[in-house]
């Protein structure tokens, strides 16, 4: 259950939530909005690397770096956008928070998911969601199928969900290569942002390194 500071719990919510739905459930089927020729992507273009960056501040984080300048928007589904970063790489920026939609969104992205030679998923999560015997200070990076030797393997009961979880599951089902990295963050200060960007560079995302890295200001719920 995701609550903001100061939010009032009106009534207890059960995980058996669908009991509360009536027969005519309101569910707006997500639709894909293409910014360029759909046919080109479905039939002609090949994709070498499909990268998913998912999390609350994913777009803010990439705005001045990877998404600065040349990348062009290919399509959009709800809060998920796909950009062509270079000839070989597609970047999916996912900020969808309603998990009920992520499976149907990822179904619409099947063209990209299935076509790519390799996929890398970066999931930005809160440190409070990380479960371990000992919680290290600062930004924690864990991996599934990691290709980076210094990244520790994610241990149960930690997991990845969202569009990143869907892309990874589909690639696993199709026996296709993928790596998934989970970055647990407390605050998006300059050091953390720098660490995330370094990680993006290591997985193959290029950007102008002369850009001044800035902390991301988050909305505060404190009464100040």
């Amino acid at each position, binding site marked *: 259950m995701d609550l903001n500071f100061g939010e009032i719990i009106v009534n207890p919510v059960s*995980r058996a939530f*669908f*009991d509360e739905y009536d027969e005519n459930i309101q*569910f707006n089927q997500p639709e894909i909005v293409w910014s360029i020729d759909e046919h080109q992507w479905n039939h002609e273009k090949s994709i070498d690397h499909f990268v998913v960056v998912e999390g609350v501040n994913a777009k803010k984080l990439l705005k001045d770096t990877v998404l600065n300048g040349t990348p062009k928007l290919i399509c959009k589904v709800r809060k998920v956008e796909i950009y062509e970063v270079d000839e070989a790489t597609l970047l999916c920026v996912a900020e969808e928070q309603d998990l*009920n939609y992520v499976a149907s969104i990822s179904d619409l992205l099947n063209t990209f998911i299935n076509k790519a030679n390799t996929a890398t998923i970066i999931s930005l999560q809160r440190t409070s969601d990380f479960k371990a015997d000992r919680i290290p200070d600062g930004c924690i990076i864990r991996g*599934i199928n990691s290709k980076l030797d210094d990244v520790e393997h994610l241990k149960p*009961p930690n997991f990845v969900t969202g569009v990143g979880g869907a892309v990874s*599951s589909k690639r696993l089902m199709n026996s296709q290569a993928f790596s998934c990295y989970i970055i647990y963050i407390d605050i998006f200060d300059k050091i953390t942002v720098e660490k995330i960007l370094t990680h993006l560079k290591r997985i193959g995302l290029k950007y102008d390194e002369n850009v001044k890295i800035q902390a991301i200001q988050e909305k505060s719920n404190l009464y100040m």
Partner: protein
Amino acid sequence: MTIKKLQNNNLKDFKLIIASVSTGNVGQLTADLLINSLKMEKYALFYHTAIIPIIGPSAFSEDEKELSISSEFFVSESNKILILQIRSPITAFYLESLCEEIIDFVKSEKINEIIQLSSAFSYEQHFIQNNPFEFVASDSYKIDENLTANFNKSSNSQIPGCGIAMKLHNLAIINQIPSLIVYKYVSEGDNMFDSMQFAEKFNKLLDTPIIEKEGRADLKIPISWKHLFGHDVNLDIY
């Protein structure tokens, strides 16, 4: 729906046991205990748009190459059972399609019957001194003494908080597939103890049950239960 088979077992006359996502996740926790204690093997990966996708390390082994996704099948040849473990909530909009596709799978594999492990809101049990374990069976389901000795026959037509169980049960009846729902009245919270009691009861219905130790089933808790409710409090704060 996609099923990626990892083994080629003949499932004819098997029982399909489904962990219904319900109050306190008792069905799923019980399925975890059965899979781990019976050393069941992974039979297939299952992906459906209705089930919220997740991926993580294996729930049962420390092998880094093994991964778990939102739903998977596990098989036990000695018990002739196949467990469908569902690890995440279900999107209500696709519920109908999920139930239909499970029924199609049961028919195509010639599986004999469906048993669902579920739970119900404890406040719906009006006679609190009654056995909290109950069952609902279809007319075609063969009720034996073992079942009635451990679970009370429910007199309710609905099981509040049981998740997809009743919907799938009704669809199984329409398709003339014997169907059983076994469930426990529970409250939301730390439901590990409920699921251990449930697994203990359900073990008595198995052909080759989990070996007993000191009069109780020797249940093996999976590694994925570690820190299920967060990590320990840092003692330095006191």
